[in-house]
């Protein structure tokens, strides 16, 4: 399997959502391909950054505004 096909699987691979066969193919390819290793590293960093975005606080008046609309 070439780089382009492997790269299509990397997102699912990092989420452990590839099949056993796909996982073997990806891991075998990664052993010898620096480009795909780099891409996997970048995907991991993107996911890490997204995961660290703060959970925001809803404005305090939200329930009051909802209640007013429901009344």
């Amino acid at each position, binding site marked *: 399997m070439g780089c382009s096909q492997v*790269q*299509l*699987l*990397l*997102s*699912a691979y990092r*989420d452990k*959502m590839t099949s056993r066969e796909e996982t073997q193919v990806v891991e075998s390819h990664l052993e010898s391909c620096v480009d795909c290793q*780099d*891409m996997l*590293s*970048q*995907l991991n*960093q*993107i*996911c*890490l*950054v*997204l*995961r*660290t*975005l*703060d*959970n*925001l*606080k*809803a*404005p305090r008046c*939200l*329930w009051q*505004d*909802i*209640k007013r*609309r*429901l009344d």
Partner: protein
Amino acid sequence: MDEDIELVRQALQGVEEGFERLVAKYQDRVYTLCYRYSGNEEDAYDLAQEAFIKAYRSLGTFKGSSRFGTWLYRVTTNVCLDEMRRRKRQIQTQSLDQPVAGIHSDMKPIVFDNGISIDELYEQKEQAEYIQFLLNQLKPEHRMVLLLKDIMEFSYDEIAQMLDVSSGTIKSRLSRARELLRRKLLDREHFP
């Protein structure tokens, strides 16, 4: 009995406190999802309100086959996607080739492996807003799947249920969304 189901039951019987407690429990996560999707506080507030109102009016359709939270986030994602499509508002039209306006204008881009780590950059307060700016460049369906997986941390199956598509569709859509975000970062950074 599951606390949420009991609160839903109370709300359906007209006990206001039941729904108020559900709002209190989920409002921050719902608001965060709406903010990350819309990219601004005003729209996020309107969308969160709309999501809870739609949820309240649809409570009778909640059968308890999934967790209440999953059901509520499904309502919220639908409100976001429907509302923003309806408005046909271009939330963020600025090209990534142009300097970012306002507080973003002198912000350093994320750099992967050429000397500055994301951790270091992320220490800058503005970094979250820069990521938000990049998210805003994506198509709604790509932005939403990134939010649900990488920010809200739902599983593929949960996201598939929320968006009413197959898990395979989520897999390919998420792959595409991450790749688009990666390319935007690479373009911006002149990555070697």
